[in-house]
């Protein structure tokens, strides 16, 4: 990638862009009566702390893409124990980011939520283990201790069910993402996000055997962008503006990944920019669509995922409503005109 493009920590503001932003700013200040264009406040509930996978949001915010759409966006982090669904249900947040299976669970419980784009086309969940554990396929999991979290549990259960590994054949433990815990071997197999903990493990020099759910017929979407049903119905322009600006931000960071670390530190000052860059590099492949546009939700895959969860989830799968997503805000295989040079 072009690491020479920005030499200063101004991140993504190139000179031409700065000039354009300046003109826009001056123009906005020159409105009759000196009125500044009023921006619509938007709250976005993230499903984790600020980190690299959200870099597209940050870029859209930093580059003023939201502002260009008349939006002033505020991001809200969530910890591992926080409920990041309810704020959207209750209207405290306009948009939310959630794992697709978590969203489906909420939908099954009656939350009037709609997925409007799949940010991660693939689930980031991966099962990693040290080579000496010799985990090469799912059947090798039998008799092993598996570290899971609330977020990874559904897909792991689906995998085991898919391959007929009885739940009682494995032992689940809930451990924090700790290098010491991993080294201790208290869990032989770890279910982690490929764009997070494995990056740290790789930096520590661990060689890992990885099992990807996609290799075993479990094709879950990862993070999806969702909103309330009434927002889709009442403010479709708002949803379209937000979705398109967000993916424009993701296009920027895909092209300029070298700056992702610095960008993340603007929102998470304590973050390690080099580590965040590696996390982003682990995230980007998860975003790449097939023949459709970024954000596209393939109905067959969504339905298959729903059926898998319905069979193996803890909740009553029959309650998972069909649909629950829309592609009306995603350019279907077309490059948005706004993105053309």
């Amino acid at each position: 990638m072009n690491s020479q493009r920005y030499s200063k920590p101004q991140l993504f503001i190139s000179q031409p862009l700065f000039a354009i932003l300046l003109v826009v700013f001056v123009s906005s200040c020159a409105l009759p009566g000196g009125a500044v264009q009023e921006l619509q406040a938007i709250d976005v509930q993230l499903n984790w702390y600020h980190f690299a996978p959200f870099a597209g949001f940050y870029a859209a915010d930093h580059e003023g893409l939201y502002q260009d759409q008349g939006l002033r966006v505020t991001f809200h982090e969530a910890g591992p124990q926080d409920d990041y669904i309810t704020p959207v249900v209750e209207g405290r947040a306009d948009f939310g980011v959630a794992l697709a299976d978590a969203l489906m669970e909420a939908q099954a419980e009656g939350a009037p939520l709609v997925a409007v784009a799949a940010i991660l086309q693939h689930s980031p969940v991966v099962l990693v283990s040290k080579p000496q554990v010799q985990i090469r396929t799912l059947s090798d999991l039998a008799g092993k201790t598996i570290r899971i979290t609330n977020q990874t549990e559904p897909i792991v259960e689906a995998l085991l069910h898919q391959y007929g590994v009885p739940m009682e054949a494995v032992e689940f433990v809930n451990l924090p993402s700790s290098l010491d815990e991993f080294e201790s071997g208290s869990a032989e197999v770890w279910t982690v996000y490929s764009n997070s903990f494995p990056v740290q493990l790789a930096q520590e020099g661990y060689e890992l055997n990885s099992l990807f759910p996609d290799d075993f017929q479990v094709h879950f979407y990862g993070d999806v962008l969702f909103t309330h049903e009434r927002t889709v119905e009442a403010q479709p322009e708002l949803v379209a503006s937000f979705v398109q600006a967000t993916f424009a931000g993701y296009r920027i960071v895909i092209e300029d990944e070298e700056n992702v670390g610095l960008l993340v530190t603007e929102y998470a000052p304590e973050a390690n920019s080099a580590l965040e860059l590696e996390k982003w590099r682990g995230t980007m492949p998860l975003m790449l669509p097939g023949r459709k546009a970024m954000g596209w939700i393939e109905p067959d895959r969504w339905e298959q995922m729903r059926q898998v969860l319905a069979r193996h989830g803890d909740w009553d799968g029959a309650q998972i409503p069909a649909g629950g997503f829309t592609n009306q805000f995603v350019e279907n295989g077309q490059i948005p005109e706004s993105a053309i040079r």
Partner: protein
Amino acid sequence: MKLRTRLTLGFLLLSLVSMAAVGFLAFKMGQEQILNNTLQRLDVTNELTEDEFSRWMTGGLSTLESIAQRPLVVDLSREISVRIDDNANEAADQLRDVHMQPRLQEAEFETLFLLDPDSGQILVSTNMEDEGLFREQEPFFQQGRMAGTIQAIYFSLTEQRPRMTAAVPIKTETGELVGVLAGHLNLEEMARIFSPPGSDRQTEETYLVNRQGMAISELLNQQDAVLETWILTSGVESCMRGDSILRESIDYRGAAVLGSYKWLPEYDLCLVTEIDQAEALEPIQQYRSSVIGFGLGAAAFFSLLGFIYTGTLAAPVIKMRDVARRYRRGELGARMAIPSTDEYAALAHEFNRMAAELQMDFDELERRYQSLFESVPVGLYQSTFDGEFREVNSTLAEILDFENREEMLATSAPVFFANTSDRDRWLEELKQKNEVVGFELEIKRKDGERIWLRHDAHLTQDSEGNTIIEGAVMDITARHRIAAELRASEARFRSVVQNSQDLISILDAEGNYIYISPSMKGIFGHEPEELLHTNAFALVHPEDVAEVEATFAELLGKPGSTLNA
């Protein structure tokens, strides 16, 4: 400004304007030609690359099909996929080692593998670690079950690298689908196909963009571009739209480029060949420099021709000017050559006629002037301040006792002045007033006789701008002598009247006294001054007044007569 200069500048201007107009047209035509050639070359490059790319792709498919059609491979695949006996593993080893692995030596594929036609599971692979994994959702599998297909570059999440995968169905003679044979194409070969053309076209590159606008082949100016760089340019966008394809665009770097864009529907890709406009149009810049250079050279050449030609035009005029200068110097006999019959010749002819008439008039004036100069009874001369005579007439020569003019011209004026101070005073007055009129001075003639001359003179300038003296002299020696004699006679008369005992008076026509001799005092007791301007008849006895008045009247009627009463 001289005529020749004006004409030359006119030629230069005309040449420049003409060359600019011709050069502009030539440049525009050349520019269009170069542009068209460049675009045609880009189109050809694009087509050649497409052909090579397609050959590579179809070559890969052909290789797979040749393997898939082998009866032994079909049988082995059937054995493996349906697991009809315990020899499936042996069949897998045979398929891998005998039919797949050797084909990798040709470097066409990186990996060959057999997929279960129903589940998409990898049954056999040259990379044994992949065996057991599923690819049921991959387009190459879904389409490869039906016919040979190639999935253009995609990012393999589980392999963490870009892949391009070909797949063909394996069918029995009865058409039963027993497997899908797939292979990951060796992307190094693709990189070779899309490698830069060479040093002669430094900025030209050919690359592929998928429908999402992502580069799926490496870029010349960006490392690791595959599936990491968006090519969201108007050229690519128009390529995807498939309508009017742009030829000029801004590329992924923001550089202005010329491009050839072709949508490849069978691969769902846009094939792009672009070159920086700066490089592509460099020949146009060179051509423009050549046109400008040629134009300036031609303008200079034509100006030189114009300079030479205007020389031939200006030459008669210059000759006329020279002849006119000779006229000005008085050489009215000069004539212009009439070598041709053009307008210049007609003008020269008229000049010559005019000069001839002027010569005649001048000769007549000269004759009249000489006649007047010689016949006038006044001595005339021109001299310098030093007294050198430029011209004298015969009258002057005669006054000063010379035989002729020529003899006098050999002398100088100062020698004639009887008193040197007179000349100095005269010259001083002349310098101050530029003109001295009625100056009388005594002159020594050549024979030494002294005579008086009345001398009128003024300053003027000759044809060369020198101040000279022009003068006229009259011999007033006789008048001087008469005046002297008159002054002596008058002195004598005055002595007689003043000393006479008789009363002598002079009356005006009214009888008033104008002059009364001193004897009045003795005769009448009156001082003469007392009676001046009184009537003389008042002193006459009244009885005699009438007679005296009659006599006085008679005398008035006979001027010059004398009456005695």
